[in-house]
C-alpha cells in the first residue's frame, strides 16, 4: 500500500517532470522541440555531449523528463517504495537526460537487467536499483546504433542486443564492486559501468578501430536553465517544511549527523520532510558553488546538481560533502586548473560520491579523497571511451577502494598489535586519555 508521503513524492515528481516538459516546449517551440527530441535519440551521447547544445535546451529538457518518467513508472510498476534510493535514481536519470541518457538508449538496459534477474530466479524488483542506475551505459547503446558505421536497421539491432547484454552483466558485477569499497562510494554503478565500459571499449576498439571522444559544452545557457535549481530548491524546502513543520528542521539536523554510508535511506531513517529540506539546501549550495566559480549552468552541470540533490535523500548532506568539494578545490588550484572548466567543475559536484568517507572517517579523509578524486577522474574517461556516463562514479569507486583498503589495513593491524581479546581492548580504551 502506498503511504501518504509516497503519494506526495509521486505527485511532486509528476509536477517537476510536467514543468520540465512545459518549459521545454515553451523554450524551443513545439515542432523544433520534437525535431530536437528525435535528433537526440540518434545523436552520439558518449561523454561529454551536452544535449542542450546538441539539440536545443527545450528538446534536452523534454528528453530528460521522458527518461525520468520511464524510471518513475518502473518504480511504480515493480511496486518498490519511492524513497531515498529510488528518489536518487529518478533524479539521476533526470539529470543525465540532459547529457547522455535518452528514452531509447535506456530501455535495452532495463530489459537486460530484467533477464538477468529471471536467469537466477530473482524478482526484477530486487535488481531495480541496478537497472535504474545501470542506465549509465546508455551511450554504449547509442554508440552501437549510430557510431560503428552499420546500416540503421542493423545498427539498431546490434544496439539493442548490446544494451541487453551489458544489462545482463550489470548485476553480478555491481554486487562484487559493492564489496570493494564497502559502501563508501555512493555511485556504485559508476564503478561497475566503468569496468564494463573498459571491456566494451576494448572490444569496440578491436573491431571498429579507435573511436574519437567528442565534446559539446553549452557555454551560455538560458535564464530558465540558470534559475532551474534555485526554483527547485525553494519548492523542495517549502514542501518539506509544509509537510513536516518543525520536525522537518530537527530531522534535517539529525541527517547531518549520519555518515551517509551506502545504503543510507534518509527518507526512511529520518523522514520524508527532512530529506526534502536536505535536498533543497544541498542543491542550492551546489548551485551557489557553480555560480561562485563562474561555471555555466548547462546540461552536464545541471545534471550533476540534480544528481547531488537526489542523493541528498540517500547519503549526502552538507557536513559530509564539503570536505570532498574542498579536496577537489585544493587539487584544482594546486594543479593549476580552471575551477570553471568541465573536468574540475563536474569533479567537485559528482566527486561527492565519496561523501560517506568524510562522514565516517572525518573531514581530513574527505579532503584527501576529494584531492585524489580529481587526479583520478581526469584519467578514467578515456579508458572507457566515454561510454560510462558515471565517469566520476568510476573514479570515485576506485578512489574509495584505495582509501578503504589503506584504512582497513591500518585499523586491523593496529587492533592486532593492541591485542585481540575484546575485554582487554575495552579496558585499554577506558584507560586511554
Amino acid at each position, binding site marked *: 500500500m502506498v503511504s501518504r508521503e509516497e503519494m506526495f513524492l509521486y505527485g511532486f515528481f509528476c509536477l517537476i517532470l510536467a514543468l520540465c516538459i512545459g518549459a521545454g516546449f515553451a523554450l524551443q517551440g513545439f515542432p523544433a522541440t520534437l525535431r530536437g527530441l528525435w535528433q537526440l535519440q540518434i545523436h552520439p551521447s558518449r561523454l561529454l555531449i551536452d544535449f542542450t547544445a546538441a539539440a536545443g535546451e527545450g528538446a534536452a529538457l523534454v528528453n530528460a523528463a521522458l527518461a525520468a518518467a520511464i524510471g518513475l513508472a518502473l518504480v511504480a510498476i515493480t511496486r*518498490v*517504495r519511492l524513497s531515498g534510493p529510488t528518489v536518487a535514481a529518478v533524479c539521476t536519470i533526470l539529470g543525465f537526460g540532459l547529457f547522455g541518457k535518452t528514452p531509447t538508449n535506456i530501455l535495452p538496459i532495463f530489459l537486460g537487467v530484467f533477464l538477468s534477474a529471471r536467469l537466477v530466479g530473482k524478482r526484477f*524488483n530486487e535488481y531495480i536499483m541496478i537497472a535504474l542506475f545501470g542506465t549509465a551505459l546508455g551511450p554504449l547503446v547509442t554508440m552501437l546504433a549510430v557510431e560503428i558505421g552499420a546500416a540503421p536497421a542493423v545498427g539498431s539491432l546490434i544496439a539493442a542486443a548490446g544494451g541487453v547484454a551489458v544489462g545482463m552483466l550489470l548485476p553480478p558485477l555491481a554486487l562484487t564492486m*559493492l*564489496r570493494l569499497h564497502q559502501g563508501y562510494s555512493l555511485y556504485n554503478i559508476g564503478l561497475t559501468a566503468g569496468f564494463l565500459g573498459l571491456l566494451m571499449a576494448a572490444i569496440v576498439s578491436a573491431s571498429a578501430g579507435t573511436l574519437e571522444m567528442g565534446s559539446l559544452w553549452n557555454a551560455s545557457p538560458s535564464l530558465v536553465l540558470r534559475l532551474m535549481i534555485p526554483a527547485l530548491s525553494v519548492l523542495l524546502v517549502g514542501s518539506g517544511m509544509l509537510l513536516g513543520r518543525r520536525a522537518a528542521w530537527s530531522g534535517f539536523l539529525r541527517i547531518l549527523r549520519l555518515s551517509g554510508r*551506502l*545504503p543510507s535511506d534518509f527518507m*526512511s531513517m529520518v523522514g520524508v520532510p527532512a530529506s526534502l529540506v536536505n535536498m533543497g539546501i544541498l542543491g542550492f549550495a551546489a548551485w551557489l558553488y557553480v555560480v561562485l566559480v563562474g561555471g555555466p549552468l548547462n546540461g552536464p552541470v545541471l545534471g550533476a546538481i540534480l544528481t547531488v540533490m537526489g542523493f541528498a535523500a540517500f547519503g549526502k548532506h552538507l557536513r559530509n560533502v564539503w570536505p570532498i568539494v574542498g579536496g577537489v578545490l585544493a587539487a584544482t588550484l594546486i594543479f593549476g586548473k580552471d575551477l570553471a572548466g568541465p573536468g574540475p567543475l563536474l569533479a567537485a559536484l559528482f566527486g561527492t560520491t565519496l561523501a560517506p568517507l568524510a562522514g565516517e572517517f572525518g573531514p581530513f579523509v574527505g579532503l584527501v579523497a576529494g584531492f585524489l578524486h580529481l587526479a583520478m577522474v581526469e584519467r578514467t574517461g578515456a579508458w572507457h571511451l566515454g561510454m560510462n556516463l558515471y565517469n566520476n562514479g568510476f573514479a570515485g569507486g576506485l578512489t574509495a577502494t584505495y582509501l578503504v583498503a589503506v584504512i582497513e589495513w591500518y585499523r586491523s593491524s593496529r587492533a592486532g598489535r593492541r591485542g585481540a581479546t575484546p*575485554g582487554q581492548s575495552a579496558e585499554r580504551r577506558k584507560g586511554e586519555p
Partner: protein
Amino acid sequence: MNRKEYILHLVGEMAHFVLDGEPTRMVISLHQEQDGLHLVVLDDSPRSDEEIRNMQAALGSAHRPELAGYYGSMAGLDLLGQGRLSLVGWQVKQAEVSRVNNTTRINLWLGGGQLTPGKDLPEDLPGL
C-alpha cells in the same frame, strides 16, 4: 546467493554487530524449521532500553526487496565501520529483540511463507 552463502552473510553481519559491543560471551544458534530457519543471537553486552529499541527498529524494518537484493549483499562483508542491523532486517521474515537475564537476545526468522515465527523458541542455549 545460495542458502549457505545467505546464512553466512547474515550470521557474519550479526556477529559483526555484536562484537562491536565487545561482549565477553556471544552465542549464535541456528535451528532448521519447517520452510525456514530460526537464528538466535545472544550476548552479554550491557544495553540501554533505547539501544534495544533501536535494534528492534533496524531489524524489524519493512521488507525492502530493492535494498535487500542489492545492498543487502554487503551483509557480513563490510568489516570497516560498524555492523549494520538494517542490512539483515531487510532480508528476514521477522525479528525480535529482548533482554533476558542481563543478556540481549535476538530472534530472527528467515524463510518462506510456511514459516511461523515465534514457534519452538529454543529456551536452553549453552554458554549463557
